[in-house]
């Protein structure tokens, strides 16, 4: 039986109470909206990328909207993980994070439908690829023990992935 301490880790509550990179970014930042249809949580991911290739740099990122502690903390930690990274690295972190949540993406290229993630055996989530250091994000590993909250944790990540796809196609 998983306990609340598996979910509400101190670092998660810290990001929830003091979210990093929070708020709107003005254009030309690219805005992508994400919604959790189960609970009505709505967020926006603002991205500034200095080009359209995989080697382009995510020079700025910010999160708007509202959500529960898990979705807000996950979004906050995501921004600190990808800010200043190359687009290709950001995509690797997305894949690694979602693998930790027990989700294997079919492909990187298509728009990720948030309601149709392929979730597998949650208690047997894959370790992150050794090439990718998830760092503080490891604190969210406990979420897989609470399957209904996985969509909370992945909301920002799916939205950012969609934003990166939109920017690459622009």
């Amino acid at each position, binding site marked *: 039986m998983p306990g609340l301490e598996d979910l509400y880790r101190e670092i998660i509550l810290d990001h929830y109470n003091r979210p990093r990179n929070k708020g709107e970014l003005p254009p030309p930042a690219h805005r992508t909206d994400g919604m959790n249809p189960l609970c009505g949580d709505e967020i926006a991911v603002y991205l500034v990328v200095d080009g359209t290739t995989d080697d382009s740099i995510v020079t700025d990122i910010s999160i708007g909207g509202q959500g529960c502690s898990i979705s807000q903390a996950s979004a906050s930690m995501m921004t600190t993980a990808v800010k200043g990274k190359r687009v290709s690295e950001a995509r690797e972190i997305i894949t690694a994070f979602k693998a930790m949540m027990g989700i294997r993406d079919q492909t990187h290229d298509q728009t990720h439908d948030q309601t149709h993630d392929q979730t597998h055996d949650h208690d047997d989530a894959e370790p992150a690829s050794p090439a990718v250091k998830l760092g503080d994000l490891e604190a969210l590993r406990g979420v897989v023990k*609470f399957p209904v909250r996985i969509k909370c944790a992945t909301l920002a990540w799916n939205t950012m992935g969609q934003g990166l796809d939109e920017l690459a196609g622009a």
Partner: protein
Amino acid sequence: MTSPTIPQTATCGFVPSRVKQDFPIFDRQINGKRIVYLDSANSTQKPRQVINAMTHFIEHDYAPINRSSYRLASDATDAVEGARAKVANFIGARRPHEVIFTKNATEALNLVAHSWGRANMAAGDAILLTHMEHHANVVPWQMLQAERGIEIRWVPLTEDGQLELTNLDSLLDGVKAFSFTAISNVLGTVNPVQHLTAAAHRHGAVAIVDACQSVPHTITDVQAMGADLMAFSSHKMCGPTGLGLLWGKEALLDEMPPFLGGGSMITDVRLDGFTAAPLPDKFEAGTQPTTEAVGLGAAVDYISALGMDHIHRHETALISYAIDSLSQRFGADLTIHGPRNPEIRAAVMSFAYRNVHPHDLSQILDESNVYVRAGHHCAKPLMRTLGTGATARASFYIYNDEADVDALGDALAHVGDVFNF
């Protein structure tokens, strides 16, 4: 055969702990603790009387209804039609065939929008809804709006979550229908149904009532309500899922074209067309949920034997206790949405606790086996009016008591342990 274990006489004879004994699920413990089920506005638990009636029907009486002439089929048909008659009697319908079985209340409202709506509403025609409607009474009309270009008007809300009726007459001016909920599934607001149906009729509009949250909890008399069409749900009144209900005045239902086409809903099919069957078959295409209908009949017997007046009194007392005791205990930390006056308040309580997100609240309450719903409750327009994306909601029924309210309070007191306040 389905009478509950409750004495039916004394007004103070309603003992929730004895009602609870009729519900096998409350024998279950999770992590060694009892279940505190506070989600009955979503769906109620099922008493043994309903479970037994359904099991007995499957084991002894099951056969396809309305089609075959052998004894078993005839008996099964009688059982289902008997259930229809019980429901009709329960809501004060003039005739059993004014009660239509649907898949759920959502389908009942879709039936109305599709059948009555398409036959009676063209581009520019208007329907009046309210800001507190469930999506089931919003989206079917928006679909008609997309298809036909009809106008949708809205009754706004007051600060404390009642319908703002000051401009009702101007909103009703020229509308073809007024479709509204009898009781808000989020705020617990009890709307003045008779006043609203009378106002609709003054303007020549059809009055459609979403009664999902009222039929299980209080006496229903469709004649006194003045409704023309009314949708409600089996699984919110101790009956099984898979069955919803539409009641309508016979003349109105007779005028309406069929909704779904197929078996059972015709008297004749030719190569050049079909002739629809009379009520209720016209609206019951295909094999119907027969076992479920029998279960609903048993549910109607069960809650009727408890007494709808007793149920209503019990719930009014319980929601008053919940609002008073929890407000006193948590003060300004607890925000309770909806009207405070218990006379216009059903046993539904949406609330916010400090700034803790409803999903986090329900997660922490779950640790104590206190089950509330967190989310938008299929009422996103209302959530936007409240200025939030979601609320936590506790809703009460016949098997809940003051100890359940206290358990909710005790569980809420733990929230600060997690969020460090």
